[in-house]
């Protein structure tokens, strides 16, 4: 391997880590966004469709939730510049870990063994998809 191909390989590796790191930041933003959206959605009126629409447009938690979601879409686009979509996109599954933890801690949803196993399997599954492997 000559010096040019070593440099190319190092650049490719650095790009890959940059992409994965960007998607990782997206998972943190996504988890925070989902908590805000859930909090906002719970306060929306079920009276009629107009009251629901008005509630959606004026809820502050929903607004900030969507703003975080928008920021994470910009970062996601930057991340997608390098590497396979089918390997990078599943990294977003880390969001489940943060959301499941936050749902129990903040929203006081019940936690049990089944849910714990489910979250672990989903994370293992998307991790395996990310690794990819041979055909």
């Amino acid at each position: 391997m000559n010096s040019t191909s070593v440099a190319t390989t190092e650049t490719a590796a650095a790009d890959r880590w940059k992409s994965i790191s960007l998607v990782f930041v997206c998972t943190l933003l996504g988890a925070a966004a989902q908590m805000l959206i859930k909090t906002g959605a719970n306060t929306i009126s079920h009276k009629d469709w107009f009251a629901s629409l008005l509630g959606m447009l004026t809820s502050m938690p929903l607004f900030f939730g969507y703003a975080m979601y928008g920021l994470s879409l910009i970062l996601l686009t930057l991340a997608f510049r390098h590497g396979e979509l089918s390997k990078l996109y599943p990294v977003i599954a880390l969001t489940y870990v943060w959301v499941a933890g936050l749902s129990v801690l903040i929203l006081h949803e019940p936690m049990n063994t089944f849910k714990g196993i489910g979250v672990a399997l989903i994370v293992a599954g998307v991790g395996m998809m990310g690794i990819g492997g041979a055909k």
Partner: protein
Amino acid sequence: MTTPVSSMIYVLVASFVGSFGAVFLKFGSMNLHGGWKKFATNLWVWAGIIAYMLSSVFFVLGVRRGQLTILYPLVSLGYVWTLFWAKMFFNEPLTRAKFAGLALIFVGIFFLQLGNR
């Protein structure tokens, strides 16, 4: 609190629409040489943002009733669609490991539903 089927259907529609968001952003990411101005006028990026906004509307309709721990992982079915779009549009390989990963996700979702009873 149980999670109604209507909420699950809303979230599944959200996952389908959202999977196209990923495809649009990937197309957009291929044409980003030229700074922020190029980014802001990139129609693929806007198409991706619109797809995700639409997906979020369905998601909000879905999560109004039911548990986030159950409904949110259902969005992971978006990875199934994305895997096929990645093959179709970007010719990324469909590997055994990727399908095994999807199987684990399905079993994971099943366990989450058991936990919801």
